[in-house]
């Protein structure tokens, strides 16, 4: 870090084109960031201390981010953490978490960001309603969910191709199907599979989505419970807004292909998926260049491959590199295959592609099934 003793770059306030608003996925992820900030000469903070301190930290930038496009564009931004404690994502904490998201948004506005990507639960809490955010005349917000959907769909299609699975003959289960990400995935994939199984808790919303899909020539089943379905799915997308990894995903084909796109992850560590292929979805990789200051590369985005990040954050970066400062993804349930195609083209133009496949055990061997 180019800095004085105070850790402050001596130049005037650096340029901020974009801001990425996130929150720690788990306590161990938070601990990694704290350890890096403490530096190698200090012992890492014990877990209980992190749990005690983190909830008191007001939303703020954790680091500066610089991105290069393969098309020679450059963008500078901030990663802003709202510091929502990882164990307080449940419905009981909505109001306090919304306050944090608003404060993070205000921070981004004050920093001069022209576009803000609302990662993970930030947009879920807002239900896509940006009018709940503080006004910033020069700042727009995007949920980033369209690029997330693009990477989930690309992941499913690529994995099917790699494993020799016949997408057209498949039964696709989508958990969290009525959500912004889930419904976007369903719209993109419904016409490419034989049957879709849509899962969420609210039946009325499931019915509405099923009606919307009529005419796609796909068999549709809806349910609040996996056990309700007539057959076992061989493809599954997990995109439910679960506060912790708790989805058991029983009742799917033993050798199914499963994309866990949740943040935090949807799949419970107890899920019986030993014969299934599970990959973490909705992730992309920046190939033109990515730097963090302080250098939290691989810590803030702790993945087995370099420069991988969540689609929701990458959308704001791609739009910045493209010079399109607009609320590309907003509201709920408005993601269409056309928008998905558009954002994936923008991302690809700047060298932001589907991330290599991995899951909690590490990189996935890309062998044919």
């Amino acid at each position: 870090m180019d800095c004085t003793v105070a850790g402050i770059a001596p130049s005037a306030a650096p340029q901020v084109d974009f801001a990425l608003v996130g929150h720690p996925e788990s306590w161990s992820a938070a601990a990694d960031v704290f350890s890096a900030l403490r530096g190698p000469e200090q012992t890492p903070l014990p877990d209980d201390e992190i749990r005690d301190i983190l909830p008191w930290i007001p939303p703020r930038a954790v680091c500066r981010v610089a991105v290069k496009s393969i098309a020679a564009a450059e963008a500078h931004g901030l990663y802003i953490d709202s510091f929502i404690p990882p164990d307080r994502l449940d419905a009981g904490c909505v109001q306090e978490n919304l306050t944090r998201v608003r404060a993070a948004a205000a921070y981004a506005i004050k920093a001069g960001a022209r576009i803000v990507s609302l990662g993970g639960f930030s947009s879920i809490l807002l239900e896509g309603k940006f009018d709940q955010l503080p006004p910033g005349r020069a700042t727009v917000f995007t949920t980033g969910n369209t690029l997330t959907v693009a990477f989930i769909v690309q992941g499913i299609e690529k994995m099917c191709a790699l494993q020799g699975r016949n997408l057209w003959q498949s039964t696709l289960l989508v958990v969290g199907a009525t959500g912004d990400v889930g419904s976007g995935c369903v719209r993109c994939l419904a016409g490419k599979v034989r049957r879709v199984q849509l899962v969420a808790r609210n039946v009325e919303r499931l019915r509405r989505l099923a009606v919307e899909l009529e005419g796609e020539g796909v068999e549709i089943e809806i349910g609040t419970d996996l056990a309700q379905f007539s057959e076992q799915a061989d493809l599954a997308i997990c995109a439910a807004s679960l506060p912790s990894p708790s989805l058991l995903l029983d009742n799917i084909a033993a050798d199914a292909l499963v994309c866990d796109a949740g943040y935090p992850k949807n799949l419970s560590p107890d899920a019986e998926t030993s014969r299934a292929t599970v990959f973490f979805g909705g992730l992309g990789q920046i190939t033109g260049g990515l730097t963090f200051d302080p250098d939290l590369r691989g810590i803030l985005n702790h993945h087995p491959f370099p420069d991988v990040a969540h689609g929701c954050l990458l959308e704001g970066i791609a739009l910045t590199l493209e010079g399109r400062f607009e609320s590309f993804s907003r509201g709920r349930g408005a993601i269409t295959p056309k928008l998905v195609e558009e954002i994936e083209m923008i991302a690809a133009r700047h060298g932001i592609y589907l991330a290599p496949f991995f899951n909690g055990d590490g990189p996935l061997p890309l062998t044919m099934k």
Partner: protein
Amino acid sequence: MDALMEMQPLTESDFSDSPIWQDVLAQAVTGELVAAMNYEALAGICDDPEEAGQAWEHSAIERSHAVAFAAAGRNIGVDVVSNVDGRHWKRLREAFLRCVAERDIIGCLIVQEIMLESFALASYARVAIVAPGSLGKVFGAIAADEQEHADHAMAILKAERDADPERFDDKLHRLHLEVMTTLAAMLAKECKDGHCEVCQSSCVKPSLFEVNLSAALLRGASLQQYIKTLDALGLPGEVTLAWIAQLPV
């Protein structure tokens, strides 16, 4: 403050938590006395008579806070014994006096107004919520009082930072390492370096839960107040976050 002094003695005879409040009050009285001494020392290096007068005035206010806390102790039947030479307080006072020796008024304000007051204000506000009866009221009233004069100092410090952010932040960081490290040790969950020399017998921290407080809560609230103060001065959030992360626990 007059209102505080006029408060009627309470007949809160059943204060089973008295030993805890006795130690909490001892820390508060000590902090106020250190603050009063700091302002007196500051007055001595102010060339401008008006500024010197204000520093004397602040010193008197801090002393009146100490008196009010001691009176609140008597109300619940405890004798509040302060110790400005207690291990941590002495170190904090020495840091302040080094700024005085350098005739560094801004350094003095940073130590007293940003660092010590952040801790006092946040801790008093938390104690006010849980302390019973008149005791809670005293803590609440003094927290409000501290807030009022912190605003005045903030205006001076903000103008100073705006004039030369790099120099200001550099100074702040040096003082942070000195003062905030001591304050963090003071509010750590355990006193690892031995007795603080202010608590009456054993360390009060493990008993704080009995009055719905904890060292972790007081530290969290204090750090939050401090970091918000730094935000208000315009320091970059990613820098102050690293400073907080690097503090001892």
